[in-house]
């Protein structure tokens, strides 16, 4: 643009326009390619060497604010918080102790039935990096990535319920999509009635939308939504949300419900990544060889004969 500055009237304006058209076309080609193939993330994964330190740098102020908040927090506030946490822990421990026996029994019964669901969880703690990934996008950046064994699709929970799932993984950071993201959809089951449906993120505000509830279904405000374990992403039994309102959908063929997510989407600093994905429900996997090798074995385990009947058990369920 040098010549234009020296004679601002005409010289260079044609060249400038041509250059503008060139860059605009280039940008559009990039956008279309990226929209079609989504290879922005592959580019970004490769550019991670440069990009990740910048994220860390940009996350510093919010981490600093957090640290300052702790440093200058009221002593009384901290004491209160501490007492609250102790009480919560006591309560949770008491519940756990009671549950342990039940879980043990459940485990034994399930072993007898040879179902592959188990109650143990393998989790990984992650911190939220305070980086803004564009307004109105319900995404969070976590400080763990491929080097820590994170994979796309892993569910993320906090103490209160399901938060979302990992969508993109960089070498040492990853991005999760909250359940309230417009692109998000998660299967849910209504705890009270067992009705299964799908909860989508909503376009406005931090709510979940359930647009496809049959008109005859019994859903009320206050119903709890849990993960059913279908779909193979989220393990069963985690709270997803609580129904806030139910009304006929605009199309008239369904009821549409809105739900508040159970997880503390705004405030969670520490989240848990689940490592074991739910066992896919459906016809059970092919039974392992039940030929002579298995039956001739000298009673290796009591489970072996039960496994041969797996298809029947699956059909009975």
């Amino acid at each position, binding site marked *: 643009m*040098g010549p234009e500055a020296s004679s601002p009237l005409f010289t260079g304006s044609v060249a400038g326009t041509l250059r503008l058209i060139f860059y605009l076309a280039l940008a559009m080609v*990039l*956008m279309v390619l990226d929209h079609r193939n989504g290879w922005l993330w592959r580019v970004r994964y490769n550019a991670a060497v440069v990009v990740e330190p910048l994220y860390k740098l940009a996350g510093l102020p919010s981490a600093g604010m957090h640290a300052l908040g702790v440093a200058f927090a009221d002593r009384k506030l901290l004491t209160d918080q501490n007492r609250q946490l102790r009480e919560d822990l006591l309560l949770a421990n008491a519940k756990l102790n009671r549950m342990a026996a039940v879980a043990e029994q459940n485990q034994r019964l399930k072993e007898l039935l040879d179902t592959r669901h188990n109650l143990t969880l393998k989790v990984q703690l992650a911190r939220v990096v305070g980086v803004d990934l*564009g307004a109105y996008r319900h995404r969070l950046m976590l400080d763990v990535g491929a080097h820590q064994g994170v994979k796309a699709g892993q569910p993320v929970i906090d103490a209160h319920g399901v938060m979302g799932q990992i969508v993109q993984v960089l070498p040492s950071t990853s991005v999760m999509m909250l359940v309230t993201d417009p692109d998000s959809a998660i299967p849910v089951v209504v705890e009270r009635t067992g009705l299964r449906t799908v909860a989508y993120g909503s376009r406005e505000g931090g709510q979940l939308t359930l647009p496809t509830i049959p008109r005859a279904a019994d859903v009320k405000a206050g119903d709890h939504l849990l993960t059913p374990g279908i779909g193979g992403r989220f393990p069963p039994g985690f709270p997803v949300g609580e129904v806030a309102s139910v009304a006929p959908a605009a199309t008239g063929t369904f009821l549409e419900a809105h739900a508040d997510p159970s997880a503390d989407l705004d405030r969670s600093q520490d989240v848990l990544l689940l490592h074991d994905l739910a066992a896919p429900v459906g016809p059970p996997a092919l039974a392992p060889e039940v030929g002579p090798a298995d039956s001739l074995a000298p009673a290796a385990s009591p489970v072996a004969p039960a496994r041969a009947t797996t298809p029947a058990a699956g059909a009975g369920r």
Partner: protein
Amino acid sequence: MNRARLARWWFAGTLLVSLLAMLLPLPRVLEPFKPYWPALVLLYWTLEAGDRVTLGLAFALGLGADLLDGVLLGEQALRLTALVFIALRFRSRLRFFPMWQQTLAVLALLVNDRILLLVVRAFAGESLPPLAWWISPLVGAALWPFLFLLLDDLRMRLRIQ
């Protein structure tokens, strides 16, 4: 030579800081008020050092912002290129506007930028953003005089051309 190098570092540094400022999270209530920092800083340099800012630079900065912000590769490149093109076209006039007129011009540029973004998002199949989304250009324009004076003052202090 030393001064020229300092000037170059200062130029690149402000642009980098503007990218970082874009990534800084704000409390949820303030989120719609966040101005589009890279555009503001780039506008400043367009007006003050028009020979240094080219369409290619705007495109490159936009690509960098896209890599960081990751909505759609090329989106911010397109917006910043268009913004810088208009600003360069009217540079000689914009420079000698009184501050309030310049602020209005910046507002118009930022609103134009939002409209471009809206068009791109509409083509990508996203829904219309809420009304609060349009506050950001207003905040950006309101901040413009202060940003301009601050950057100008710093430039004078560092004695950079």
